[in-house]
């Protein structure tokens, strides 16, 4: 039975993705039998290229996707290099987890509330500092260059990269390397970059590509923060898919394929740049520059500290402004704080929120549970069979994170309609599972593999069968990492926008779909309520994942170190 879990996981997991990609690829070349006779093979591409503003849309897509990834990587590396040896570094993890849990849409909405010309930041410093007695006419949100989107993406992805980097650091002899380099006279940041980064980069490469793919293909964040005339490619494609003129679907499919192509090209480019930097890096490292002067010592810390601190502050303020708006009475520019605070909004929306809230909860719960079962099954089978996931397997696992969602969800939707599963809870849970599973696997694989195998042997020699060992030894000892993996999966599910839209046939409203659709202009108090709840739930999940084992094992100090 257990033997079937890994292939079953792959089938469940990737089968529909492959089918979905095919379902997107065919119409991109004019073939969609359901729509009657096909059109010319290149006609969709002609239409795509003829679309007004396509060039600007593409450059916007590439710029925001690539720039945000570079920013996030630099910041994550900078923080590690500057602070690895300090006391704060250990505590960083605690700060990062809730930031990671913050859904993309909630962050984008809060960030928009923050930096708009009439946003909270402007209100805090106006008019006494700026002299703006009415909001300035500057494009700080939905700016034509996509800078607000780029910044928000970078803010959202930095904690993800940082967490993975910290996890990777635990798997390499980083501390020793650093000690050796420091004793050879290298400054802290230089030592880290020259001796440790090459070791950890390999481990964060795949997640980095996932970040890149996400940045290039995000829809929910772009709907909120990107300009609309024209929007980034992914939003355009979604618009065309939803166009009442079905012929637009060919163009949409071509756009989705183009987006996949862009992602592949960007990853290859990234790979190329990596190789180049690695070559130069070897020369740089071998050149022996110590970076021990005060500039090289201080500057990275100051830069990484300032920018990192700024990003952290902005993220926290983004959440705070959501909460504030959900409680605000009339709150107009330039009042720094709402003159009246009221719970009326919450009470009025209580009924309306109940349904999407419960959908969000059961959906995230089901997807997380399914992911946990499959991942635990895979890991257990892996241990029994004795060899781990190959590099290729890891790529497969990552596939849904590397392929733009819109690239296969459209095709997958056609498939679902065909088998009559669209708009069913099963389809919805599956669509979330696609994105929950990789994260749960990533979070759980290392702790699971790191569990001392001798516990298992000891238990077996004491007469416990494999099943009992699993339930009574492995699961209880790994309770904390399992719950944290579950919290991550829960957070990932809560953040899903497009999958809910496509697989749910619009029938299932979650806090995320509600927040994004309301974000287009509805009452800020209501948006605040939805987005705040959306952001608070994952946070609650993490909190439970940390507290529950701590409480259950409050008399078991031996488990506190296990994570």
């Amino acid at each position, binding site marked *: 039975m257990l033997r079937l879990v890994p292939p079953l996981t792959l089938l469940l997991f990737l089968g529909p993705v492959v089918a979905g990609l095919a379902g997107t690829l065919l119409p991109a070349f004019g073939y969609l039998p359901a729509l009657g006779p096909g059109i010319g093979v290149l006609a969709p591409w002609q239409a795509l290229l003829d679309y007004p503003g396509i060039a600007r849309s593409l450059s916007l897509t590439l710029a925001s996707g690539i720039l945000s990834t570079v920013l996030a990587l630099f910041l994550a590396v900078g923080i590690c290099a500057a602070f690895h040896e300090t006391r704060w570094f250990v505590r960083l993890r605690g700060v990062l987890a809730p930031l990671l849990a913050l859904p993309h849409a909630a962050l984008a909405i809060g960030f928009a509330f923050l930096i708009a010309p009439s946003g909270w930041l402007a209100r805090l410093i106006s008019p006494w500092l700026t002299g703006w007695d009415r909001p300035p006419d500057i494009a700080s949100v939905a700016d034509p260059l996509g800078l607000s989107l780029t910044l928000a993406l970078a803010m959202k992805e930095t904690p993800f990269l940082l967490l993975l980097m910290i996890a990777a650091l635990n798997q390499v002899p980083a501390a020793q390397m650093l000690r050796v380099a420091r004793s050879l006279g290298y400054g802290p940041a230089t030592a880290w970059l020259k001796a440790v980064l090459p070791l950890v980069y390999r481990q964060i490469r795949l997640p980095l590509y996932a970040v890149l793919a996400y940045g290039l293909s995000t829809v929910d964040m772009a709907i909120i923060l990107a300009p609309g005339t024209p929007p980034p490619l992914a939003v355009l494609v979604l618009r065309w898919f939803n166009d009442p003129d079905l012929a637009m679907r060919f163009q949409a499919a071509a756009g989705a394929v183009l987006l996949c192509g862009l992602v592949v090209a960007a990853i290859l480019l990234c790979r190329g740049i990596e190789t180049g930097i690695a070559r130069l890096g070897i020369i740089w490292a071998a050149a022996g520059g110590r970076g021990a002067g005060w500039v090289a010592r201080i500057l990275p810390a100051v830069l990484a500290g300032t920018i990192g601190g700024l990003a952290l502050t902005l993220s926290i303020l983004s959440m705070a402004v959501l909460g504030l708006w959900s409680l605000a009475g009339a709150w107009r520019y330039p009042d720094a704080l709402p003159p009246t605070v009221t719970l009326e909004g919450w009470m009025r929306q209580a009924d309306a929120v109940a349904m999407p809230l419960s959908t969000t909860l059961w959906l995230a719960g089901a997807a997380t549970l399914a992911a946990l079962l499959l991942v635990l099954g895979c890991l257990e089978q892996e241990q029994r069979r004795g060899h781990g996931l190959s590099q290729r397997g890891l790529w497969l696992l990552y596939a849904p994170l590397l392929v733009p969602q819109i690239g296969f969800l459209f095709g997958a939707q056609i498939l679902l309609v065909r088998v009559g599963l669209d708009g069913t809870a099963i389809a919805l849970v599956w669509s979330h599972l696609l994105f929950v599973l990789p994260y749960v696997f990533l979070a759980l694989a290392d702790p699971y593999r790191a569990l001392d195998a*001798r516990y*298992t*042997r000891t238990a*077996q020699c*004491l*007469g416990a069968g494999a099943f009992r060992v699993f339930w*009574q*030894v492995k699961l209880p*000892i790994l309770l904390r990492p399992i719950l944290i993996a579950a919290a991550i999966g829960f957070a990932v599910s809560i953040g899903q926008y497009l999958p809910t839209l496509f697989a749910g046939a619009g029938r299932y409203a979650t806090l995320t779909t509600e927040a994004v659709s309301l974000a287009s202009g509805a009452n800020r108090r209501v948006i605040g309520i939805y987005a705040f709840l959306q952001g608070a739930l994952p946070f609650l999940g993490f909190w439970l994942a940390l507290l529950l084992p701590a409480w259950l094992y409050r*008399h078991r100090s031996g488990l506190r170190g296990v994570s």
Partner: protein
Amino acid sequence: MTAGLRLCGVRLWLQDAPLIERLDLALGAGEVATLMGPSGVGKSSLLAFLCGTLDPAFRAEGQVLIEDRDVTSLAPEHRRIGILFQDDLLFPHLSVGGNLGFGLPASLRDRAARRARIDEALVEADMAGFADRDPATLSGGQRARVALMRLLLSDPKLLLLDEPFGKLDADLRERFRHFVFDHAARRKLPVLMVTHDIQDAPEGGQVIRLESLTPSPNGIGLRR
């Protein structure tokens, strides 16, 4: 003659490199055999083979007979072979009593009876009243004793010791060594011990020295 443990033609490979060419061994009830040899020679793997928990990277053949019963193809949990490692490996999520209870066969259903056996074992370990303690709060010697009692409660037919005294300081080591061998002798358990230190071996026991068959670059087997 009924031997507590008999190994017949045991061979062991790591991937395709032979580790143990051929090993035959007979051990009577209450006898102790000591297995010595350089690192990476396959001592611990041999114990794992006996237990039935050999890593799939290894390949083995030969027979393991306990009281003339061939256990080679049995699942680990049905072989009734107890093993003690250098670390006590008490389950951190269970109390001391819980750990001991884990060792007791489930066939003993009666709760009061189970409790009595556990208390009895604690008395034997000179740790009466420790049942509800968190194992993490015990001293090294206490933990080692609980580990042995847990093992003995599972009623094994053979005791394997994988450098069991390695981590204890000299004084404790001596006392725990006596504790282990006394209990093994009292139950007439055959004991197979792996150690680096000939001093660990009790007087009069067999000593088997394993030689390195293939020069190994780093001397250690796969450890994942």
